[in-house]
């Protein structure tokens, strides 16, 4: 089978499944469509890996005439629909942005679009494979998980209209659009898929149709449309400068030289920043958690925000060594530092996860913005590890929420007793996020080493040093909460559907496996990719990899040490100043009244309070973006 067929399959197959799901009647059990499609997508992504990992960059001719027309029509339909919703909900900023963008696109099509006939619309390289694997495996696992989740969700929230068919339809459209985005070489196509993801996330965030959900959906929409407008402006700029349209091909554009490429690069990276929810646009992603948890998992790990960093990664070679690139990198760096600190002050689990996502994406943006070859390597590694661990964590939180009815970290105390298997999974997911020798810490380590060689790298090293330790704090206190052994707890880990378990097991396995085989991923996919773009590449020293693997092995066998204690230890209640403890969970107060023992974590709101840091970050990041824009304005003039 030709690779191009695989690419088309991955784009179209989810779309077909989506349409099936939309029209599947109530009588037909749609869960099988979801499962089979997910399996198909996963298998084909893996097959793509097998078939294409040793190929370099390949571009494919693919006639674009009719496709372009269809895309324009779909875009206009969506625009009209959004206009309608915007006016109905009186969200005039969104309305204006929709109008501006539609005008830009129409103008583009009218002036240049019909003249331009690109020869290579699709392309494919190792980065596409990595993205495809993330979307194809993690994305489809999340779809399967949603089956069980949404059922419970509607049982718990009878007031919310059951629009599950539309929900699954959008999930698969989302996947399809993501595949389209990572396989498209034609920037016009990329913009189209870009807008589809914006639209899907808009509807999914507003799923519950409460006022809060609608507001947050429109917030997400406006911010992403702002990026979309910048994207469209970039297209017009390219077409004005080069009416032949050859430079609308991504792989030609990034080699077209600084003077030309930097302007579209900055505009498109600005779009990437909005999509990747960097400061000052982070609020749409934190707001997006009103959506059902699988949606958050999807947005955070395999789609949407990953599209943002993906596009910035694509432009990294252009940004390398430029002041504009540095500004974008600084936006990422500051986002990482501030959101890691903000996460300390949060007790809502999904909010903590959201801030951690934004922070890690910030790190990726920082790497891509500086854009040297070894930072590119780090950025891709970060993206992989983050996708795996974050999806697992979101789904775990979702499952816990379904069972205990709360997503507050303070309510997750003693989870190791109440839901032992899930607690261990969460532990592994969190370890994947911040502990040596798992994924993220490997990337952070490599990032520090890579920044030492980069211009102005020192700034980023300092950011990493402080931001990294802040993230350690919020992960570890959450971990501690889960692992604290509150006694006499009931096990409530029942009634979780088997397909949920299957997804959770697979993702947990992936976190460990990815940490084990990352040298392989690096040498098979990342290094050839970096090599092909920069002509040089990097990797971790063999000795260090060995040590990491040994540490991982040690970490895995350590728990077994508990089986080999010579004598059974004597169990005593915890020390509470001699207070008589009844079962360790209660103590008798001075008036003979029995109190429950409640322990709660530190949130250090005075130091890491959300509002203050957010304000500061917004100001600084707007400033940086403004500088970047002024600089490209200088280039134009």
């Amino acid at each position, binding site marked *: 089978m030709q690779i191009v067929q695989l690419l088309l399959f991955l784009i179209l197959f989810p779309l077909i499944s989506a349409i099936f799901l939309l029209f599947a009647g109530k009588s037909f059990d749609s869960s099988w469509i979801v499962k089979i499609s997910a399996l198909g997508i996963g298998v084909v992504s893996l097959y793509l890996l097998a078939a294409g990992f040793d190929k370099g960059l390949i571009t494919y001719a693919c006639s674009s005439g009719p496709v372009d027309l269809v895309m324009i029509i779909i875009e206009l339909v969506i625009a009209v629909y959004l206009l309608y919703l915007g006016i109905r909900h009186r969200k005039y900023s969104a309305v204006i942005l929709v109008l501006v963008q539609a005008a830009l696109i129409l103008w583009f099509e009218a002036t240049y679009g019909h003249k331009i006939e690109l020869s290579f619309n699709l392309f494919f390289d190792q980065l596409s494979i990595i993205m495809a694997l993330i979307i194809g495996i993690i994305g489809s696992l999340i779809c399967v998980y949603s089956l069980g989740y949404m059922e419970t969700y509607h049982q718990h929230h009878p007031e919310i209209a059951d629009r599950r068919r539309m929900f699954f339809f959008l999930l698969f459209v989302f996947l399809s659009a993501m595949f389209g985005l990572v396989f498209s070489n034609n920037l016009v196509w990329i913009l189209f898929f870009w807008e589809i993801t914006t639209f899907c996330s808009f509807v999914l965030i507003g799923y519950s149709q409460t006022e809060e959900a609608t507001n947050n959906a429109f917030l997400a929409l406006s911010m992403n449309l702002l990026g979309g407008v910048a994207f469209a402006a970039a297209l017009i700029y390219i077409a004005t400068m080069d009416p032949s349209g050859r430079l609308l091909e991504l792989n030609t554009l990034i080699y077209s030289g600084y003077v030309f490429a930097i302007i579209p690069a900055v505009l498109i990276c600005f779009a990437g920043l909005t999509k990747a929810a960097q400061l000052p646009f982070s609020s749409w992603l934190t707001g997006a958690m009103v959506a059902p948890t699988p949606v958050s998992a999807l947005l955070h790990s395999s789609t949407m925000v990953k599209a943002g960093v993906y596009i910035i990664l694509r432009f990294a070679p252009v940004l390398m060594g430029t002041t504009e690139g540095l500004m974008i990198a600084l936006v990422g760096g500051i986002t990482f530092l501030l959101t890691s600190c903000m996460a300390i002050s949060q007790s809502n689990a999904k909010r903590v996860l959201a801030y951690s996502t934004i922070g890690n994406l910030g790190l990726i943006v920082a790497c891509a913005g500086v854009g040297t070859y070894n930072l590119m390597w780090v950025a891709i590694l970060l993206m992989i590890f983050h996708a795996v661990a974050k999806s697992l964590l979101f789904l775990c939180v979702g499952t816990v929420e379904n069972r205990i009815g709360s997503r507050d970290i303070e309510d997750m*105390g*003693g989870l*190791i007793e109440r839901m032992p298997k899930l607690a261990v999974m969460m532990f592994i997911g969190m370890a994947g996020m911040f*502990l*040596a*020798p798992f994924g993220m810490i490997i990337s952070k*380590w490599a990032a*520090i*080493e890579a920044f*030492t060689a980069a*211009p102005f790298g*020192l700034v980023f*090293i*300092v950011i*990493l*040093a*402080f931001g*990294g*330790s*802040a993230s*350690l*704090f919020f992960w*570890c*206190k959450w*971990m*501690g*909460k889960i*692992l*604290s*052994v*509150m*006694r006499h707890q009931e096990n409530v880990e029942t009634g979780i559907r088997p397909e949920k378990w299957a997804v959770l097991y697979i993702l947990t396995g992936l976190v460990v496996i990815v940490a084990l085989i990352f040298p392989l991923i690096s040498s098979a996919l990342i290094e050839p990719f970096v090599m092909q773009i920069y002509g040089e590449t990097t990797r971790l*020293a063999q*000795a*260090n990899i060995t*040590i*990491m693997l040994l*540490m991982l092995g*040690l970490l895995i066998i*350590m*728990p077994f*040490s*508990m089986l080999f*204690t010579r*004598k059974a*230890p*004597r*169990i*005593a*209640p*915890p*020390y*509470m*100043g001699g207070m008589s403890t009844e079962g*360790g969970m209660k103590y008798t107060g001075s008036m003979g009244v029995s109190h429950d*023992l409640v*322990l709660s*974590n*530190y949130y250090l709101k005075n*130091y890491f309070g959300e509002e203050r840091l957010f304000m500061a970050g917004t100001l600084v990041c707007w400033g940086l973006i403004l500088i970047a824009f002024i600089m490209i304005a200088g280039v134009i003039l």
Partner: protein
Amino acid sequence: MIPEPYASIINAIIYLLLAPVAGGLIAGIDRKVTARMQGRVGPPLLQPFYDVGKFFEKENLVVTTTQNFYALSYLVFMAVAGALFFSGGDMLLVIFAFTLSHIFLVLGAYAAFSPYSHIGAERELIQIIAYEPMIIITAVGMYMVTKSFYVGSIVQSTTPIILYLPGVFIGYLIVLTIKLRKSPFDLSTSHHAHQEIVKGVTTDFAGPNLGRIEIAHWYEYVFLLGVVYLFFAWNPLIAIAAIIIAYFLEILVDNTTSRVKWQMTLRSAWLVAGTLGVINLGVLYYLRMVVVP
């Protein structure tokens, strides 16, 4: 001559065997000197070994059996971090392993679900985030001077690192106070007779588990002082003198200051890392990149 990889393995083994002895002796000297500063005679030099010996004679008393696992992991990963350091490994990897071991201690305290352990755990975490940036800046500073993250190469460098990194060195000494659990920064638990909120992270560890934690501390002492050595590595004699003076200063500070709040700890440690450390590195960066490209 022993070939390179074997030499580093032998170093690691020597560390694993001797570090507890050296660490215990350091702790013993520490207590003796402290006592003299307070006008007392003080315990025998080998008192720390007696204490740990006693812990292993006692019964294993736990709140939850998982504490055994956490205490053991703390010890094991502390030893691993130190062994990596002494075998000449990558500084950053050493730091991450070091952090990992502390996370286990913190988790052990959380696991007990007791008010005192809990406060200790939170404070220990605050301490970790207080000192970690400075330690990473130290590693990066050494890299900027010697062009290597490997302890093996740093130690062989003939450059007097201290002359390039005076700010970083002072910063490191300040966070060393946190790490050695000495006043004014002994928030989460403190060494020997001091007390703060019962015994912080170690409150609910007893018997052999407490012994393991103590041995881990000894490993930690040797590792931390090994970092001091690196600053002076070009001349071993000066280096050893520097270690002795540095440690004496720590004891002096311990005995002449009173404990501060965690806010102050966090602020001062970050301030030190952010000013002394960063300015030092910035100047170095400027000299290396701009003046002599």
